[in-house]
């Protein structure tokens, strides 16, 4: 009986028997690879997910940033005068940079971060990442996952070291703190609310997740 090796995304291989139901599904391609996209489009249509577009139309767009309602409320403004407005304006600039930058510095190993722009968090199998919006103080961390390569889904935000009145979460503080653990759990939960049946992508190298990732 013919045995077929399916070489799918991320070079993962699966051997299935010809004529099997799994192979039938795989050959329909769209049923497997398109479904997360259908979910994304549905969430956008429902007003539960928002696509960030740079305000300057001339910007090159290399990646996609999708945002939860929580993040979008910070990003879309209007920004009121004062610390919250300034901080959210900075954050928008940093998120837009994810869309437009040719290179993005990446911390691949948890707990090894220095000043990289994004990083994988522990446990790596949770596929939760954070964006470091460090200046000005207070530093913020935006927790996100990848729906596809170059498709960031920003879900939650927390202050890094000091409390922020307009963020409902406590500062993350030490990397082994309960707040860090809770932030990762909450990110996963928010993902599950949006995409009940789909996991974020998983990879073995930076290039599996984004174009232009730089390990310094």
């Amino acid at each position, binding site marked *: 009986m013919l045995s077929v090796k399916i070489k799918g995304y991320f070079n993962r291989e699966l051997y299935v028997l010809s004529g099997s139901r799994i192979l039938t599904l795989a050959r329909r391609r769209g049923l497997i690879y398109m479904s997360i996209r259908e979910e994304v489009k549905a969430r956008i249509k429902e007003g539960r997910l928002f696509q960030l577009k740079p305000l300057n139309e001339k910007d090159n*767009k290399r990646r996609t940033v999708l945002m939860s309602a929580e993040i979008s409320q910070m990003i879309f403004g209007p920004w009121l*005068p004062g610390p919250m407005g300034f901080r959210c304006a900075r954050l928008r600039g940093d998120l837009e940079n994810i869309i437009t930058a040719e290179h993005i510095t990446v911390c691949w190993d948890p707990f090894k971060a220095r000043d990289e722009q994004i990083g994988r968090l522990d446990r790596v199998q949770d596929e939760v990442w954070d964006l470091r919006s460090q200046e000005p103080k207070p530093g913020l961390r935006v927790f996100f996952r990848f729906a596809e390569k170059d498709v960031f889904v920003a879900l939650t935000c927390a202050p890094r070291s000091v409390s922020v009145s307009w963020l409902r979460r406590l500062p993350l503080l030490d990397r082994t703190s309960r707040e860090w653990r809770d932030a990762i759990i909450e990110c996963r939960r928010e993902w599950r609310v949006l995409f009940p049946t789909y996991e974020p992508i998983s990879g073995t190298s930076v290039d599996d997740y984004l174009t232009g990732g730089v390990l310094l």
Partner: protein
Amino acid sequence: MITSQEESFFSELAAGHSGPTIPESKRVYFQTRLRNRIFNFILGKFVVEQKNGLTKALLARRIGKTPEVINRWLGSPSNLTTDSISDLLLGICAGELTPQSESLLNQSRRNSTPAPWIKEDGKWQTKFDQGKPTSTNDTVELPLLKMAS
């Protein structure tokens, strides 16, 4: 096509020299953009020169900075002084910055979203190939839904 959000965002800029004060939060947004652009420019130069043997340690020595400073400058965007920008470009590529600017007004789109499957009208299309195995243990390449580069 300029959206109403963009028109509103640029309204103070479009008002001319006698227009209203540009809100500080908007100025902060553009300050962030400039920091990111400069950082991206410098990082791009460094990435190129890495292929020619440049390391952070070598760069640090060349411009008289500690490795920690170089890590910070190349790790993420920051409020670099013009002196630091100059030092970095000298050390990375024996170059200097040649500033130029472009108007934020009267914009036209440069390229479409990198994820064209997200369309505002909710419709989208994919391409299919009907790859079939040709022999035992043959590899079936499932074509990916490619996003615009």
